């Protein structure tokens, strides 16, 4: 390492030029993506950041609002409800998806007949159209004659839940749908990680007399920590951003039972035309996700094991 940096500092002009050329080639490869990112993500994000301190109805003059939008947040009941709902969704969706993904990955890592078929099947919801998934889930959970409640009734459940038509069950219904939809993708990541664990470790554990649980607990889980870390970060961010599934399944209802932050952002911007205020909610969401991600990265050193 040190000899390399020494070489770099004493490199001849010709060498430096060729190195520059190398960088230029590399940058030219990422440039198209970077331009797209700047136009469609970076600039709108910057605009939204500025807009959070402004009043704008989308058509008339933009006016300065200072911190009005943020002080308004403290008084906004729907914002409080949406924030709580978002946290509930994250708290339900992240662990459930992770456990389900790991379980499926473990199962489909076994020498199983028709293994590839099942792997594809579980991955399928991830590529399926979200609107179709939402509609089908609503049908499955149809209160009176839906398959789920018919099954529950057949099993002797007296008053089966009314799922998305009930204030108490709507959030659970949405979380279940979201787990089912996302689990295939995270399963694939876990599968890849599982397959990269050297068998030698299991052999050594077997020699030491470890049983199946101990192998899982002391070999598999620690070796999976990089994948678990990656999944927990990506899944947390995705869960905070949930919108489309909820919009199609419940529209944020009944009442405000599944009104999450992004639904609230959407309603304030496009139903009430308060783009400035809506941007301030978006900023709160951004900083919340950022803070949680920073904490996750900070904690990473304590539990993630890079072999």
């Amino acid at each position, binding site marked *: 390492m040190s000899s390399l940096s020494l070489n770099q500092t004493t490199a001849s002009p010709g060498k430096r030029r060729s190195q520059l050329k190398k960088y230029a080639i590399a940058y030219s490869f990422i440039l198209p993506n970077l331009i797209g990112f700047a136009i469609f993500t970076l600039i709108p994000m910057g605009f939204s950041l500025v807009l959070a301190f402004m009043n704008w109805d989308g058509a008339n003059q933009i006016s300065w609002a200072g911190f009005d939008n943020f002080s308004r947040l403290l008084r906004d009941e729907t914002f409080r409800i949406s924030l709580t709902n978002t946290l509930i969704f994250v708290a339900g969706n992240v662990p459930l998806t992770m456990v389900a993904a790991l379980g499926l990955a473990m199962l489909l890592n076994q020498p199983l007949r028709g293994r590839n078929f099942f792997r594809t099947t579980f991955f399928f919801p991830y590529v399926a159209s979200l609107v179709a998934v939402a509609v089908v889930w609503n049908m499955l959970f149809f209160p009176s004659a839906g398959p789920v409640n018919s099954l529950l009734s057949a099993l002797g459940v007296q008053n089966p839940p009314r799922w998305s038509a*009930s204030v108490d069950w709507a959030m659970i219904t949405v979380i279940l749908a979201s787990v089912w939809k996302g689990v295939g993708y995270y399963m694939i990541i876990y599968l890849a990680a599982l397959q990269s664990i050297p068998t030698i470790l299991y052999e050594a554990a077997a020699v030491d007399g470890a049983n199946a649980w101990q192998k899982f607990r002391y070999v598999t889980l620690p070796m999976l920590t990089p994948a678990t870390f990656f999944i927990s970060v990506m899944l947390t961010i995705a869960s905070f951003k949930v919108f489309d599934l909820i919009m199609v399944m419940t529209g944020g209802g009944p009442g*405000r039972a599944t009104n999450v932050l992004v639904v609230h952002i959407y309603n304030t911007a496009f139903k009430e035309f308060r783009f400035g205020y809506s941007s301030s909610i978006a900023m709160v969401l951004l900083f919340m996700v950022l803070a949680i991600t920073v904490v996750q990265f900070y904690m990473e050193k304590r539990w993630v094991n890079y072999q």
Partner: protein
Amino acid sequence: MSVLGVQGKWKISVTLLSLLLVFAVMGGVSAQDQVHLRMTVWDTATTPYWQAVVDAYQAQNPNVTVELIDIASAEYQDVVNVMLSGGDDVDVITVKDIPGYSAMLTRGQIIPLNEYIEAADIDLSLYSGAAEELTYEDALYALPFRSDIWILYYNKAIFDAAGLPYPTNDMTWNEFDALARQLASGSGADRVYGAHFHVWRSTVQLPTVQDGENIVIAEDYSFMAPTYNMITSLQADQIIMDYGELKAGSIHYSGVFKNSQVAMLPMGSWFIGSLIAAQKAGEFDFSWGVARYPHPEGVEAGTTAGTLTSLAINTASANKDAAFNFIQFYSGVEGAQVLAALGNLPAIRTPEVLEVFAAVAGVPVEAQEALQTTTVRLELPMHPNVGAYEQILNQEHELIMTNSVTVEEGIAEINRRVAEEIGD
């Protein structure tokens, strides 16, 4: 690598280039006369009149082409808002409802038409009051082309089977309630419901403003309690379908009516056109009728609620003159005749236009009387905060109808939220 050689390539390039030049010159010449208009509409597949009126206009004006931008009905206003906020230069905007009209007008996204109307010498009295309802601060921003009213649809086969007389044109909501209870029969998948209330807030809230004493922009909403009590009790007794199920199953009112699952359906007159088309296509074969919208006790029969569908011109349009010429046709007598011929109620209802409507195959004979109104109240009045009111009303409507709260709790919550959330 090359079969043609350098010279061959060069020749091809020159030929291509000259061809391109020729096309460019030709294009430049013809583009001067040709006008291309873009118009936002919804659900073209199930709404045949959009294209029909355009075809009639294009037949008379061969230099104009009109492109329909099809948007799903449920997202229509949201999509249009995003388009306009993004500076889209679409020429003609169909105004679906009053909240959309009010939002676009106060934000300066559609232009006042008064100068054009004066120049074209249009007689606004032909619209029998609709133009006045759309006038805001002395300016008219849209020309109405459809004016729909709420009426009552009924399935004659179900009435005949129950041995009950058809609904009359003078029926109170209490009589409607009693009739619905008599009509309901069967159970499980064979259940026939006495009436049907679609999931829209308006299906319950319109009867509450029919007397003209209240409007949906209010401070105290206790006037809504009697209607909510009646409809939630119909729901509890399974005389009407369950709101939560309609919502979860995205069940459309047309399906349950066409499947003979419901006897009576309060709905807008726009449904006549779809029903005729569906019957012609063989989707159902029972005979159906229409009657006037039921009315509260003490309110004159024929009092109903209505909606206007109108056409406006985008402020960012580059073809405003051509666009006005087009909407003048669409909302005028000629457009009205095309609309009427397809079973739609145009905003202009001259005797000739109504004759065309009545002559459409499939329009029930009862329609002529049922469509006569004494008073039409707008579903939603013009108000700058109408979007915020609607959100609260929609959310609490959902809670009441899913039995998450009682009628009193729901109404108290509307009152509290309107007082706290609107106005700052």
